[in-house]
């Protein structure tokens, strides 16, 4: 299967009740006083096989929402999205990890949720242990892990499902230098095998090494799409311009 991502007019709406708590759209329709806020609106984007794309933008711009749409975590409220290929996503450092469980137990749970069968998840444990480099900590509860160790466990686990579409949200920024080298190598392997890597983050140096294209999101909309350096230049200029005008 060839990996691809196609979004047309993609929109995700968040509905909040009177106490500013998020509610489902159905509940929002039943309640009289609700506020809506678009996390993403009118986004058209197409990513083909072998591409690696960076998502740029300030906090609340819509990067995470777009990644969650691609990962199938969010259902669209308008528009359409089609993702071809096995998806592996790491959208937060603690994403899916249960703190009371050990690294080994979490690896089984996350492996199954990422699409492995239970025997496959158990068979992958040695490999997860090796690639996460957690050593004895693998048998300890995740609550005792540092942010970096959690990121390594999550990353090593999702790689076992052999993703063709890899989606990462700032998680790589918690990794140490050694592991970042591995991370860049693996991302490159996925890309050169015809897969797709989409990464959101603020470490522009790392993103420039890993990606050739960037999408600039602002206020839930896609405002620029093109070569990484060009889009980054526009993003920084706009950012600085806004900071100066403030």
């Amino acid at each position, binding site marked *: 299967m060839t990996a691809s991502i196609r979004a047309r007019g993609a929109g995700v709406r968040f509905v909040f009740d009177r106490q500013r708590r998020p509610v489902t759209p*159905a509940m929002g329709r039943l309640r009289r006083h609700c506020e809506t806020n678009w996390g993403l609106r009118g986004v058209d984007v197409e990513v083909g096989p072998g591409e690696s794309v960076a998502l740029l933008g300030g906090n609340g711009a819509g990067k995470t929402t777009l990644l*969650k749409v691609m990962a199938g975590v969010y259902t669209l409220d308008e528009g359409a999205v089609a993702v071809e290929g096995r998806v592996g996503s790491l959208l937060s450092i603690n994403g899916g990890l249960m703190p009371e*469980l050990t690294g080994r137990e979490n690896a089984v*749970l996350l492996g199954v*949720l990422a699409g492995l069968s239970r025997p496959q998840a158990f068979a992958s444990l040695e490999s997860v242990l090796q690639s996460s480099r957690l050593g004895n900590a693998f048998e300890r509860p995740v609550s005792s892990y540092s942010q970096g160790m959690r990121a390594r466990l999550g990353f090593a686990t999702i790689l076992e499902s052999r993703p063709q579409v890899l989606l990462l949200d700032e998680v790589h920024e918690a990794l140490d230098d050694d592991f970042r080298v591995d991370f860049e190598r693996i991302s490159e392997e996925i890309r050169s095998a015809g897969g797709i890597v989409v990464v959101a983050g603020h470490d522009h140096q790392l993103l420039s090494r890993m990606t050739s294209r960037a999408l600039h999101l602002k206020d839930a909309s896609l405002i620029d799409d093109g070569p990484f350096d060009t889009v980054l230049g526009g993003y920084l200029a706009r950012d600085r311009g806004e900071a100066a005008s403030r």
Partner: protein
Amino acid sequence: MVSLSQSDLRARYGRGPWQLVKWLLDPFALVGVYLILVTAVLERPGEAPGLALTCAVVPFQILTLTTTSSMTAVTLRRGIIANMSFPRAFLPLGTTMTETLAFAASFLLVVMMMAIYSVAPTTALLALPLILFVNLVLAVSFAYAATLFGVWLPDLRPFALSFVRALFFLAPGLIALDQIEGAANTWVRVNPFSGLFEGYRAIFLRGEVPDLWMILIPLGWACLIMAVFLPIYLREQGHFAKVAE
């Protein structure tokens, strides 16, 4: 589903030899003291009152624990719901499995009560899988409804739990059906819990195969609840990640 339940149970009971001890003692801690009080201290009328009560409390606990856990299922699992794409339709099934496995040890209470009252097991035990099946199907239907309720109206969770408890008191839970007289004896059977409680009593207390109504009425309720809530659940599950964060 199995992995979710296994993770829940491990998080709840820990690891090693104490895991089994905790699992065995949990139901005793939850309802055992109450049952011993009723059996040994309070004078209650009827045949083997402690066993009759256990036959109501055990299936009720599975239902009430499933309801309680389901109402917080999305909040408790927000880590995976907000970060991973997986079939969320399994959540209520996983919760039911967890609570059923967690409370499975409570059947030791039934055995204990049978021993205390010298009630011998009969071939009616062969009907146990059937009544267990009905119990689980009803628990699953409660789980779907409760998960949605917990997402929609989190502030009203205690009221939903009170409603389930009220159903217990409106069913022949504390008093067996044969001690209820008049029209109430007929009407109380409409309660989804009545058939279950009496089904367990038929098997363990009287050594009889449960009557048809004891199977059909709870099953009918389960089908009705599923028919109403499952389609809504399937439509709403795509938005759980927005609410979970």
